[in-house]
């Protein structure tokens, strides 16, 4: 019964866009109940890697295993069906639509027979209210527009949606980068909850503090390559920061500024 194969196992994934080498051999594993932080500065290849995992891009070469099985995704739908849900930073929710409509977008439960098939919005409202309550967001009315929610709440709703629809792996693309302190801690707390449910989380960020707060393991990406994977016990936050920024230059700057960076 117990399977020890990681949820996601990618080996030597390479992705070229014409003459541009975006990923030149990236390896990464994600286990159940684990938050794997993917760290890297701008241009390190984080976005390309997520989009490859999410089925948007096809890797040029390399192996991709889900639950120990080799897979090839041709569309985001394939990834979703395999239980890999991606929550993009700004592109997760539609502000003009209600919380319910956003929650069930693309997976509306229908009733009745064709051509009179309709969406059971009462049930949808019920589920949305319940799920929001579960993650501690006080949705006054599930029919209110998502635009009225705060940035942190929106991220949480997007994550809750992915969890509700049976995701095994969550890919969170910089979920905290546009948020204030209180909002960030709300999202981080929720990520912790998701981990406890046994899901695997890939948490992409360039904020080492946020990563260190919830991460179990850290993979640092630089110039399309993995610099290495570290467990929380095996690395200090300062080392991680230096590694991510490419080491020496930042140390120099940091010394100049009196250790502020």
């Amino acid at each position, binding site marked *: 019964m117990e399977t020890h194969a990681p949820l996601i196992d990618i080996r030597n994934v390479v992705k070229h866009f014409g003459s541009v080498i975006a990923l030149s051999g990236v390896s990464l594993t994600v286990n159940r109940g684990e938050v794997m932080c993917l760290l890297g500065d701008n241009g390190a290849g984080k976005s390309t890697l997520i989009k490859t995992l999410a089925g948007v891009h096809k890797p040029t070469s390399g192996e991709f295993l889900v639950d120990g099985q080799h897979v090839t995704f041709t569309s*985001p*739908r394939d990834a*979703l069906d395999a239980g890999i849900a*991606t929550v*993009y930073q700004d*592109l*997760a*929710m*539609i*502000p*003009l*639509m209600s919380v319910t*409509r956003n929650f*069930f*977008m*693309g*997976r*509306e439960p*229908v009733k009745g027979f064709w051509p009179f*098939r*309709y*969406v059971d*919005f009462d049930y949808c409202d019920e589920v949305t209210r319940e799920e929001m309550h579960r993650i501690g967001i006080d949705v*006054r*009315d599930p*029919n*209110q*527009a*998502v*635009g*009225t929610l705060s940035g942190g709440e929106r991220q949480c709703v997007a994550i809750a949606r992915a969890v509700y629809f049976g995701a095994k792996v969550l890919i969170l693309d910089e979920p905290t980068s546009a948020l204030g302190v209180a909002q960030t801690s709300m999202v981080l707390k929720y990520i912790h909850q998701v981990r406890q449910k046994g899901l695997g989380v890939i948490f992409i960020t360039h904020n080492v503090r946020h990563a260190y707060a919830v991460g179990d393991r850290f993979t640092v990406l630089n110039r399309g390559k993995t610099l290495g994977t570290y467990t929380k016990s095996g690395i200090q936050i300062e080392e991680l920061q230096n590694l991510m920024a490419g080491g020496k230059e930042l140390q120099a700057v940091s010394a100049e500024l009196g250790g502020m960076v």
Partner: protein
Amino acid sequence: MTDVSQPTADVTTASAAPVSRARDERLKEASFLTKTMRRPELGALAGLILVTIFFLSTADASMFTLAGMMNVLTPASQLGILAIAAALLMIGGEFDLSIGSMVAFAGLIFGSFLILTGWPLLLAIAATFAVAALLGGLNGQIVIRTRLPSFIVTLAFLFILRGLSLVGLKWATGGSTQMRGIGEQAGEGLVREIFSGTALEGLFSWLAAHDVIAKFPNGTPTVTGVPVSIIWFILVAVVATWLLLRTKAGNWIFASGGDPNAARNSGVPVDRVKTALFMLTACAAALVAILTVLDAGSTDSRRGFQKEFEAIIAAVIGGSLLTGGYGSAIGAFFGAIIFGMVSIGLTYTRFDSDWFQVFLGAMLLLAVLFNNYIRRKVTGER
């Protein structure tokens, strides 16, 4: 529970559960106004009430008789069918400026199927819808594949279809820009009755016989029935509203217009939704063409002239945002009625009916400002 003399410990334990429910109820009550404000068609409904009050106080009383209302509603219904389709497309994030020309072009092909090929009415109607859907699909595919704004692509089709209608009419009739004899060629029968003339005649004679509505001295009612275009208008509004608010497709339309990327990420087939909407608008244009051509018995190249703008204006008055993702079919329904009311209503007043355009522009401007305000309210953006 209501006994105030109960020990305090009991009260606190008993109130523990109802606390959240009580709060819920309070919020539900408070949100009634917000709920109303959130309806996109609110502005159009308010506009309709204002316009009605205006004409009640300035227009001749005959405007608000049954015959007067039919006069107002007939042009409103023809525009409204287009406006509702335009509203759906706008909510889906696209425009179609070619619907007016599509009315003329569909009129031409409908007439040609009847007169040149001699097909029976039902087949000609089906073929007209098929050709319109094909052209709408072409519009959609060009927009999707080139990623050009639909504004410019359909502007091209505005001219292409108008030009084709002219050239085609001249070719089909040997030099005339009008094709006559369609009414005779269409013949009589059930299909004809569905697409032209009036409906509910029995009801109206019954109402006249019982003195509910006005009648001539010989007993026939002054209004013999409801023009079928009005029935179609109501039917289209009901189906479109149901589609938009209660079905999967409706949710996909809102999503496609609201944010195509987010929609795609959630598994909504945005391109398919948009193509279907373009086909739908073209079919709405074909329906209007068939209804008006059968009533007039002929078609000409100016049919549907500038209807694309009027339809978009009616949709905007109805609360649809130009940026997509928000709007309503029932709003466009009211928008079209406002339109019909003002254009026809002015002839019942002492005002010069050329005030119509001034009024229209002002109405449009007001509606856009109002919509923008509402959108900020809804999304909480500043």
